[in-house]
């Protein structure tokens, strides 16, 4: 259990994290969202014990991040932004160092390092110095150092930033695999990632919490939630569609003869639309019900408007 209590961080006059409070329970993968400069990294730096909060505090499984920093740091694995590693060390040398710092010795150390090398498919490069590796490998070395001691809490600051789609997929699979009974906190500004791996999303803007819910709940705050998109070969009778019960509005899409019907909040319009299409005998090529658009919710939330 991680609990943030009125966590606040000020730099000079500038408040970066402002009175942040929430809890994360084991088994949750928390997506920490927000635009650049919203305070995501600063919050993570406080949780990992790198920065001290200006006021408020947080606890990790009962240990306070200010007064029991070492105890907290033993329980968490942390991947700082950009996955910094000692570039002049070899992959194995670096992981050996981390293992020793984490208190592993002898056979235990060997086992832990071998496990991580296998898990992240780093074996082929284990004798290379980290500086000579590609970005994807470096990121995996960073992840490896975070999971080496099999921590109860994983804090990953933009773990997939700058990776190619295959590598992103791989990292996400890894995070999903790890998450079973642990707490994972991932910061990101890639929204597809939230739908892909997170069980819960927390959105912050200007250091304040603006939304907290499952990705599905966030999507349902979109005005496109339950919207129906139609694509046809011929012109559609917009007036008839707009008159259907529950339809809040119609948007023309860029494609020819393509419309999106917006639903009124809380209503489902697909059956009515489908009925009308059948009654009129329109030739419909595509018919989609949208779950909602996260990017649109994200934009409206972080700009201070209510979705």
């Amino acid at each position, binding site marked *: 259990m991680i609990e943030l209590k009125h966590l606040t961080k000020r730099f000079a006059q500038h408040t970066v994290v402002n009175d942040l409070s929430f809890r994360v329970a084991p088994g949750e993968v928390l997506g920490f969202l927000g635009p650049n400069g919203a305070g995501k990294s600063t919050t993570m730096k406080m949780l*990992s014990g790198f920065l001290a909060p200006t006021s408020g505090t947080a606890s990790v499984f009962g240990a306070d991040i200010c007064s029991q920093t*070492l105890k907290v740091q033993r329980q968490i694995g*942390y991947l700082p*932004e950009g996955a910094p590693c*000692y570039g*002049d060390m070899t992959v194995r*040398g670096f992981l050996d160092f981390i293992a020793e*710092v984490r*208190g592993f010795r002898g056979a235990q150390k060997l086992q832990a390092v071998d496990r991580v090398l296998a898990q992240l498919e780093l074996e082929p490069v284990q004798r290379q*110095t980290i500086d000579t590796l590609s970005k994807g490998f470096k990121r995996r070395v960073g992840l490896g150092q975070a999971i080496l001691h099999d921590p109860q809490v994983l804090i990953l600051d933009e773990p997939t930033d700058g990776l190619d789609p295959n590598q992103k997929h791989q990292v996400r699979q890894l995070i999903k695999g790890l998450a079973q009974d642990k707490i994972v906190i991932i910061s990101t500004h890639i929204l597809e990632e939230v739908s892909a791996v997170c069980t819960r999303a927390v959105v912050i803007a200007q250091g304040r919490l603006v939304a907290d819910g499952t990705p599905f709940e966030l999507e349902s705050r979109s005005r496109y939630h339950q919207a129906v998109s139609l694509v046809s070969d011929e012109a559609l009778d917009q007036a008839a569609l707009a008159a259907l019960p529950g339809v809040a509005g119609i948007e023309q899409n860029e494609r020819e003869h393509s419309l999106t019907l917006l639903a009124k909040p809380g209503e489902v319009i697909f059956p009515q639309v489908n009925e009308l299409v059948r009654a009129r005998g329109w030739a419909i090529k595509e018919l989609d019900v949208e779950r909602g658009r996260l990017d649109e919710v994200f934009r409206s939330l972080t700009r201070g408007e209510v979705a």
Partner: protein
Amino acid sequence: MSQLPVVFKRELASYFATPLAYVFIVMFLVLSGVFTFYLGGFYERGQADLAPFFDFHVWLYLLLMPAIAMRLWAEERKSGTLELLMTLPITRFEAVTGKFMAAWVFAGLALLLTFPMVITVNYLGDPDNGAIVTAYLGSWLLAGAYLAIGSCMSALAKNQVIAFILALSLSFLFIVSGLPMVLDMFSSWAPQWLVDVVASLSFLTRFSSISNGVIDLRDVLFFVTLIAAWLAATAVVIDLKKAD
């Protein structure tokens, strides 16, 4: 305390990961040879001791120790590994001391490699080897003082060159504070005790008796205290400047 050797080991190994370490050691050996034989007049003196060798260490270290120390923290800050190191379960004390010890041991290794000097003087005459050992220990202490200052300056700067220059300037102050021209500046207006304090801070005065093989407990205490104080300052600076 248990993680100190881990930090120490990694740091020491990182010195030898680049050719820089070997270049440094060669530089040190060549320069100390030049100082001893040409400037110090080792042969001309006709005495079986290593005074001309040790006397120049105060100046030699002024240039070389900041070069060893400059990367200690500036490098970590620049590459972002400072955040990694500080979020591992290591205390500030372990990190600061472990890294310092690595630099100090590295300097000690370079110093040990000057052993041909000892062989030479033993071959040519009959020196007081006890005094030589004492002087070696004193020289190592002196190196530690320079390195502790360098460590703090490295924590202060993100750029290694700036760290080097800051450490060099500050160390220079610790040398010249014993010179008459500096003390004269103070003696005209400052009370005698302040002049004494300034004079007592000088590496030159502190080291001169040690280099002659005379160990005064007060001099040892001076260097040890100085090292501890600068390392404590390093820890404070790191805490203050972490967020930058």
